[in-house]
């Protein structure tokens, strides 16, 4: 037992969703000796849009054009919302740090300072978000201009219908037309990731451009599902724009979508180069809290077990999909440290009886409560475990889905938690 391979570090980031990735990045930027452990993250389900705050109060469905104003209103009403522990400067540096990292790794993002953007979704609804991939930027502009635009969809790509978008947006954006084409060299069912990989090849792009070109007519923009490359999206995007001689943009597809997978790939490639030692797809099986000296984690199982000792940890394990929280018929549990979870007494209070109830489901606001230093609190409202910090969707008192603040919450709380950890180890 004691001769297990041992890895020691200053900080263990637990989780490989957007929060975990951001935390590992920020820690590495500060030169903190970091190890990251996480299972297949929720990033595979992300659209690639970065929300900051879109809606508040959720029951009124009020959409904010200026997210910082929205945050101001939100924290005034909900002082326990995680955003309440952040100031605007931190939020801005966190977001710009994150976005510039992605830009440096081939995934530039588009934002309008201080403003939210609106973009269309495959159901023909509008989505409010803070930052979109550069491959989507033209869509924001086209929508704002109500410019004439050709929405291209594909035989064999399920759940993405140009006609649905055009019909549904009939009133908002009358200048849309659509055309269904075949994807080069394939037939039958198509999956976005496979299309994206194919488009990395110049021949495939040329063929696709050749397919689209005859249908553009007078359209000023060309919209495609999010399939423009996986590892080199900007090259694919720019080449296609050049060939079509029109501004092009991507509309996100149903999950698993390329937007999230691109972020995941960028981090998986870059973090080891920033000397973050990653252990993805490993499960932490046991934690030993050795008081002020730090933690001892058992990772993996049986003969694959290893020990990670860390001075501190950031819990970014996400909610139910990510595995940070789990439930049985009776209650919600935090899976690793068994931290107290803010929740009501019975399951009947978890969900509304209507799925789209404007108030949102109470369960989404359960979670870990922390102090303003992101330290999870025990039942006596004191920091539960020295050296432990929490960030991201696992935090209580937020409803990221309904408030449209998922990525922002993850990135900014990760940033703040890393800073809190930094203060913690430097005494």
């Amino acid at each position, binding site marked *: 037992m004691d001769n297990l391979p041992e890895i020691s570090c200053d900080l263990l980031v637990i989780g490989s969703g957007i929060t975990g990735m951001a935390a590992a990045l920020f820690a590495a930027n500060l030169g903190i000796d970091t190890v990251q452990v996480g299972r297949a993250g929720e990033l595979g389900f992300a659209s690639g849009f970065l929300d900051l705050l879109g809606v508040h109060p959720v029951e009124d469905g009020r959409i904010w054009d200026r997210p910082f104003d929205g945050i101001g209103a939100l924290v005034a009403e909900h002082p326990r919302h995680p955003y309440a522990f952040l100031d605007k400067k931190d939020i801005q540096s966190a977001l710009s740090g994150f976005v510039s990292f992605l830009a440096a790794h081939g995934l530039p993002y588009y934002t309008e300072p201080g403003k939210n953007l609106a973009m269309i979704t495959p159901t023909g609804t509008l989505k409010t978000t803070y930052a979109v991939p550069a491959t989507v930027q033209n869509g924001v502009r086209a929508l704002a201009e109500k410019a004439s635009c050709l929405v291209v969809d594909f035989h064999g790509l399920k759940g993405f219908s140009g006609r649905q978008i055009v019909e549904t947006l009939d009133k908002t954006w009358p200048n849309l037309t659509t055309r269904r084409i075949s994807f080069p060299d*394939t037939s039958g069912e198509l999956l976005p990731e*496979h299309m994206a990989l194919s488009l990395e090849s110049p021949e495939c792009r040329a063929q696709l451009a050749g397919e689209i070109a005859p249908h553009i007519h007078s359209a000023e923009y060309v919209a495609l599902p999010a399939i423009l490359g996986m590892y080199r999206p900007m090259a694919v995007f720019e080449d296609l724009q050049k060939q079509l001689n029109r501004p092009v943009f991507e509309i996100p597809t149903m999950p698993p979508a390329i937007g999230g997978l691109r972020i995941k790939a960028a981090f998986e490639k870059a973090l080891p180069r920033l000397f973050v030692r990653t252990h993805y797809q490993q499960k932490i099986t046991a934690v030993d809290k050795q008081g002020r000296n730090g933690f001892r984690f058992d990772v993996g199982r049986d003969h694959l077990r290893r020990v990670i000792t860390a001075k501190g940890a950031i819990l970014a394990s996400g909610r139910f999909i990510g595995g940070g929280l789990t439930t049985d018929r009776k209650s919600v549990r935090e899976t690793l440290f068994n931290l107290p979870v803010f929740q009501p007494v019975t399951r009947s209070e978890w969900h509304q009886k209507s799925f789209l109830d404007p108030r949102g489901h109470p369960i989404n606001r359960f979670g870990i409560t922390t102090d303003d230093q992101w330290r999870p609190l025990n039942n006596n409202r004191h920091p539960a475990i020295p050296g432990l910090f929490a960030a991201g969707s696992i935090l209580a008192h937020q409803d990221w889905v309904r408030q449209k603040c998922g990525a922002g919450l993850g990135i900014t709380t990760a940033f703040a938690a890393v800073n809190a950890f930094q203060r913690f180890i430097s005494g």
Partner: protein
Amino acid sequence: MIFTISLYLALGICVAGILFRTQRWVTLRIGPETDTLTVGARITAATGQTIRALVSRRVFKLIGIFITDVLLQLNILHQSFWRWIMHICLFYGMILLILMHALDDPLTRTFFPDYESTLNPFLWLRDLFGLMVLAGAGIAMIRRVAGHRLRQMTRAMDTFTLFFIGMVIVSGMMLEAVQIVSEPIFNEMVDEYLDEDDEEILAPLRAYWASQYGVVFENPVDTDDPAVLAEGYETHDEYCISCHSRPVSAFMSYPVARFIRPVARRFNRIRMDTWLWYIHFLSAFAALAWLPFGKFFHLIATPVNLLICGSRTTDTVSPAQLANRRALGLDACTHCGICSLHCKVAPIQLLIDNITILPSEKLAGFARHVRHRHGSEAEAALLAEGSFICTDCGRCTEVCPSGIDLKDIWQASKQDLRRQGFTEAHHWIMKKPAHEWAHLASERSVASGPSFKKTFPAIHLTDRPETFRGCIQCTICTTVCPVVEAADDPARELDLTPQQIMNLLRLQMADDALGARMVWNCVTCYMCQEHCPQGVRVADVLYELRNIAYRRFYPDTVHHLDSQSISHRPKEEAPEAAP
């Protein structure tokens, strides 16, 4: 009369048999590269090779091989000391018995003019050689009985061969023993060489022979009187001693003779010696006649093979030579089992009950398959299953004491089997759509592959709801699958995607998935399983589906199906050969 007739008959059969078998060395076709070769070309190649070998410097190498591998059998000594002892005993015991004893008239007497079978050293040498053969056979028997693996491989042919050898030797020894005690033979000799009726002379001689040579007389003979014995010795010295050493030297049969003394009189009365003589020479001639047809043939084939293959040089072998070698290889196998003891896939045979996984059995099976082209299809299918489990590691070739290039034969035989439609499962499974397999599977709900032990697998995922419990239908498994990505049209090329297979299994429709090409085209890269956010063991499940399909369909199904609906695949359509 009988002796002569049977001798010539046996000789005739033997020679004809040898001719028959050796002609196969240039006529049997094994492997696709031999298809177009004519017999003439192969004979030319064989003779050309022989002549070239004999007139070139290679002859010295051949002599070297003859000494080390044929005479000293060092290649066996490398394998196992006891096996070497066994084989040396059998080989030299037998050869020397044949040379000195069976061919005494033409050979021994020529070199040793004073040869008499009853004289030393010939007398004890004969027993010594007999003992060697018996010892060899004994060791062989013990090895085959005691060793679990060898016992499993031992066939009737092996036991029969040992029995044959034993019969010749034991009958010879018994004959000798009975002759020792025989009064009639004594009397015949006396008649022939003494030509004397004088009881005065004969009685002491009898006494002497009874006491010193162990003859048992009908009427009691007094052997206690030294004077009488001395008298007998005189006569003996005069007439007998030049031809008769004391039988004590026959250290094998003399004890037997002592042992049978109590019944010797009865034996003498019925002329047991005659009977045994018939048994002895008839069994020896039968062995001679049988030589080309049974295991004994390796006496000829193996040395030839050793000389041909042993002189293996780096220069390339022509297809004709290759063809001859393969055919010869089939005959050169002594079924010693060494290859199977070293075979790297042998442990697999402990769970897949198909003996042809073991190379020695596979070679025998393949030899049968080649000779009877229209043998049982089930047998051929089993042979194919055994053949395709082979990893071509070449270990068998390295250890074969007969120098057979087994690895080359396997590669050729696999191609032949494929061309005859006995392919690996993934080839024939993909020839029918999944729903037809589903239909067939519904007809046979239990394991039907004859080679599968009917045990329930210890690990089974597909029939447990827990396996799919966590699936949240996110499609990640399909998204990350490189095979789906590489397919131009997944539905046409693969039938189903990984996610669809998981859903079919969740719906308890595993039969429908068994024949899906996705299952058989899985590269086992484990991307799906690694990326599944809910820990569904997608790749392991696909593995298991193939396991189940093998249990259900393999290896007899392909022909079962052929007879039903698929037309027999013509040769041209056979899958490409492996590299």
